[in-house]
């Protein structure tokens, strides 16, 4: 059975120790450090850092941005995957490539695109200014940048699954008299619900954690246009380590919660087969 490629017992142990040591060094240690640093000046300082007005405003803004961009990308992701996998049309491959664009573009460049478009010196800047609409260095810009960055998560999760499921179920529904909307709601959506949830989770984690693109368009106005990751950076640059790590610990908790939920979902997927309970 065990061919020459199978490592010996000692080999296996060494590999496992290496893998765990690597994980401990690069993943677990920083995570622990975040919480240790956050609590280094006691629980009271930790609590104070979180309820301080600028921190609260950053938390609120982060939640607001996620609350707008995640539903948008759920809608977009569903629509795009539905179109791509259930219909044939020209330029389909172009659409698939475009969906991947945010993955291949540096977040900083993504942010700059919006500055170029909507900034004071940008193409649409003068017009926006004339109509008293502020996008850059304001909440709309942050929402736009975040939506752009998190744009592929839901679609990328759904497309392979829907591709694999084929069109038979929808065709069956239609042949039984269902309208397109009924087929979508009663057949397609239940078929992909776990993958959708998984995509939403990843999308949300990224939306709350995005730094680069948001940093370019935000303008870092304290209490106004700072999201949590930006707030962490500001606190850190001011040598306010305990407070910086306190806010960072919230983001770390979000990551852990996402990871836990993701594992539960994967377990459900794995146990019950792809895409259905």
């Amino acid at each position, binding site marked *: 059975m065990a061919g020459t490629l199978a490592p010996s017992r000692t080999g296996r142990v060494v590999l496992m120790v290496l893998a765990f040591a690597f994980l401990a060094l690069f993943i677990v240690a920083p995570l622990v450090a975040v919480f240790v640093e956050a609590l280094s000046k006691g629980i009271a300082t930790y609590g104070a850092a979180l309820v301080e007005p600028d921190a609260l405003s950053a938390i609120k803004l982060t939640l607001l941005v996620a609350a707008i961009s995640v539903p948008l990308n759920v809608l977009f992701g569903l629509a795009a995957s539905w179109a791509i996998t259930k219909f044939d049309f020209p330029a389909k491959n172009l659409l698939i490539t475009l969906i991947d664009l945010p993955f291949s573009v540096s977040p900083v460049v993504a942010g700059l695109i919006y500055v170029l478009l909507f900034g004071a010196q940008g193409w649409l800047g003068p017009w926006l200014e004339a109509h008293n609409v502020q996008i850059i260095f304001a909440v709309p810009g942050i929402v736009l940048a975040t939506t752009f960055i998190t744009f592929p998560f839901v679609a990328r999760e759904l497309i392979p699954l829907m591709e694999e499921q084929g069109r*038979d*179920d929808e*065709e*069956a*529904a*239609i*042949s*039984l*008299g*269902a*309208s397109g909307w*009924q087929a979508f709601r*009663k*057949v397609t959506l*239940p*078929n992909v619900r776990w993958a959708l949830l998984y995509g939403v989770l990843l999308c949300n984690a990224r939306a709350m954690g995005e730094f680069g693109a948001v940093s370019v368009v935000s303008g870092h106005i304290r209490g106004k246009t700072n999201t949590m990751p930006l707030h962490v950076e500001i606190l850190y640059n001011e040598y306010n380590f305990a407070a910086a790590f306190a806010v960072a610990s919230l983001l770390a908790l979000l990551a852990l919660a996402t990871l836990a939920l993701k594992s539960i979902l994967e377990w459900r997927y794995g146990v019950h*087969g792809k895409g*259905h*309970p």
Partner: protein
Amino acid sequence: MSLKLANIAKRFGAFTALHDINLRARPGEFLALLGPSGSGKTTLLRIIAGLEFPERGTVYYEGEDITQLSVAERRIGFVFQQYALFKHMTVAENVGFGLSVRPRRERPPRREIKARAQELLDLVQLGDLGRRLPAQLSGGQRQRVALARALAVDPKLLLLDEPFGALDAKVRKELRHWLREFHDRVGLTSIFVTHDQEEALEVADRVVVMSNGAIEQIGTPAEVYDNPVNAFVFDFVGESNCVPVVAADGRATFRGTPVAVDTAGLRGAGDLYFRPHAARIGSEGEAGLPATVALVRPREGRARVEAEIAGLADVIELDVAPDTAPAVGATVTIVPTRARLFPAREPDEAAA
């Protein structure tokens, strides 16, 4: 219910899937579309259903042009090859789906939908399984649920895409008989697609043999089996042997030896086709195909003899009574008793 297809043509990009299909299904008939993969049979079925639309040609239903109607408007029952049961719904919900998606005004009350689903499940002999999920059923049971679901909308025409394709051999055979009987009982016009000639011959009233997007022959199972119109049909519809011969003056000869066959006026190179049961081992000195016995295998009630003819790539298969089977290695003369002669196929065509 009568269905008529007139000059149906369909292309996918540069590939011509169907050219000029003309076909008529009689009321109550069970029709099989038989052909190898790529012959266009599934495309044709999907065009009849309204899941695909032809480039040219007309689909008539009871004399009415329905070419542009959608699948929903056609009121057609379609059973998919992989059944396409909705995995998250119970069996009863699957069967009732067609009724539950009707516009509110036409939708029967929930109780009635349930009753109708139960009625249909009873009809396909799955009355007790309404609460199960599709994943908890066997392949044959799923097939029957798919059938019941398709019948829930009172279709006038039932279409089945490779209805037995996903089942194992034993279940397939059982379901075949069951489906035939079921068809007669409900009295629908049904059309099914298959690549399995045995299935088509056993189940259908008439068989439509297709290849390369065209119909080769339409006929009863006996007609297509006993009187194939060309070499393709002969070869596809049953087991066959093919030997190259030369025809001249109403006689066909294989390397100078005459073989008994109606040449039907053919002259020049031809292919002699005969089925394994339509040939015998000739007696001493009789004219026939000289061959060497390579293998003798027992078969229900007969013996299958495989014999080689020097210079021919394909072995000749014939069925003989077990007690008259020759020994392996023996030199024999094979005398076709019922053969057909067709013009020789082009080498590349024969290879395809």
